[in-house]
């Protein structure tokens, strides 16, 4: 399966952007503008819909071939690239997007050629699949767990670490009683919201610090 690694799906979609000389500003610029204003963390559209580990949207203007022999090649149109590491099977993931964030999808993809709108669910799924490329090779640092499982694990890890830190040196009887209470409390807690578990960091990039 070129698009799957364990239970994680590597989705790649390239949608041609409408070329319309009369549009002001042009459709690609309208997409860029919309994307630049999207929220992050818990407010991100991809946190509102289920099943996204990581996603990105990119406007690709052109890919210019610069190698030898000398020639000049261009793409036939500009493209919107959508890449997502997501859970489970593709149909239910796409349905989840259409169900939960139809306005965002329409606001972005209405600038793409042939987009039918999110309201027509089968047409939407067919459109996305028609634009799909095989991912073939991808890396998703998610240990083959679903988004919900990952969030649960982070929640458990944090809670257990806090419990240990606050219970060092406590006598065995108290420790057991409080641990039983703690486990019951932890089980009853709702899973954290997607996008909520990261530390608040002002730096938006991971390892780059330019």
């Amino acid at each position: 399966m070129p698009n799957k690694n364990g239970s994680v799906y590597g989705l790649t979609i390239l949608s041609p952007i409408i070329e319309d000389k009369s549009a002001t500003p042009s459709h690609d610029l309208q997409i860029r503008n919309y994307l630049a204003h999207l929220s992050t963390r818990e407010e991100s559209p991809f946190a509102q819909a289920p099943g996204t580990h990581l996603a990105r949207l990119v406007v690709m203007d052109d890919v210019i071939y610069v190698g030898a022999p000398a020639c000049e090649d261009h793409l036939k149109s500009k493209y919107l690239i959508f890449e997502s590491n997501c859970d489970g099977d593709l149909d239910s993931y796409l349905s989840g997007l259409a169900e939960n964030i139809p306005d965002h999808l329409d606001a972005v993809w209405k600038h793409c050629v042939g987009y039918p709108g999110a309201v027509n669910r089968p047409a939407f799924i067919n459109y996305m699949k028609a634009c799909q490329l095989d991912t073939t090779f991808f890396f998703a640092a998610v240990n083959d767990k679903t988004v919900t499982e990952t969030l649960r694990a982070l929640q458990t890890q944090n809670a257990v670490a806090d419990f240990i830190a606050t219970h060092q040196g406590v006598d065995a009887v108290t420790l057991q009683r409080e641990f039983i209470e703690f486990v019951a409390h932890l089980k009853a807690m709702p899973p954290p919201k997607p996008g909520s578990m990261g530390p608040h960091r002002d730096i938006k990039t991971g390892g780059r610090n330019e």
Partner: protein
Amino acid sequence: MSKLNETDIQGFVLRGYNLPVARYLFLRFEGAARARKLIGRLLSEITTGQRWDGVKPQSTVNIAFTHRGLERLELPDATLLSFPVEFQQGMRHRAEILGDCGVNSPDHWEEIWREDRVDAWIGINGVTGESLEARCAATLSLINETGGATAISSQDAAAVVINGKPTTSEHFGYTDGFGNPDYLGIERSTQPGQGKLMPNRTWAPLATGELLLGYADEAGELPVAPIPHLLASNGTFMVYRKLHQNVATFRAYLDKQSLLYGGGKEKLAAKFIGRWRDGTPLELSPDHPDQAIVQNSNRNTDFTYGADAEGNRCPIGAHIRRVHPRDAFGFNGQLINRRRITRRGLPYGRFVPEGEPVDDTEERGIIFMVLNASLSRQFEFVQQQWVQYGNDARLGNDKDMLLGSHGGTGRFVVQGEARPSNPPFVCSNLPDFVELRGGDYFFLPSITALGMIAMGLVDPR
């Protein structure tokens, strides 16, 4: 590769002088022409990397410039703009990237660092207080004669003296100063554990370009450097950080945590750093200090973490394991070879032995200086990713126990094992043991480059 030209490289770059007293002068230039004249007069005073062959000088002098200082020397714009961005910006503007926030933020720095006032650093080291004073007086009179600069501030530093002898101890009581990296072409007494780890488990020197501009680095590339080439070659970048140490806070925290920790106070102190306070690496002697290891330079930096993946001996978040992970990330240590830094520095302030009353508000800490070819790739990466963050070591958001900016939060985990004398333990509610009081990024040029600057011959064309 052939031997480097030691007569062209400032001695401070090639070797730790191991001289017990120092004063760092901070200059503001007064007029480009006079400042250049001052540099010209200082040129013959600068200590180079030439070997001393047994006869140590009584004192040494070295010089470095901030980007502002180079501007005030009126280097050509095309040269000034060719310096790496982080050097142009200076350390204060990089505070967010470095995690210098809370009590470490520039608002809390000493006045000279809060504003863009320092143009140059002159580092003077001495064998004795007298030789240091004499060299400082001579340097200051040169400054006054030429009118090229004002010494707006100075910082004294000195090795901690215990039982009448200068030591390599710092204020928390740890023996410091083990293991700077070896580099190709630099002659020094090397010891295993100080360069890069090779697939056959031996150690080899790092590429020269990890320290000096103008040479190939570990990627086989020339480091990003200003133009012209001659200005950059044989030079390096220096980080200067004045790190205040809250010794009272440290001792109180260690005492309090020791009551809960089954391994005892000294073992807990060792777990923070990865070495017992006498310098014995935990990796080589997990249960007791061992002077036989400390005194043996073939052993005291020769260890790896591959056999201690769980951190039973040396915690995964211990200071020395964070800042020099050796083979801890796998791939025979190759992931870290471009993140190495050379450290210089000395403590400042009065040393207070254990058991005597001590106060956090007293001036006391360490002048920490870093030398590297790329501030952003080396020092800034280590500070941001390995000191102020834990993800590379799979420690999530945990920061370095002693250097991290905690503000009363955060956690340090001693992994430990089932043995009662080496139990797992979690330190939480971490105070700020160390506070940044200021500093900046400096360019430490070669002797040739200093001459070019002095003569106004820097030509980027």
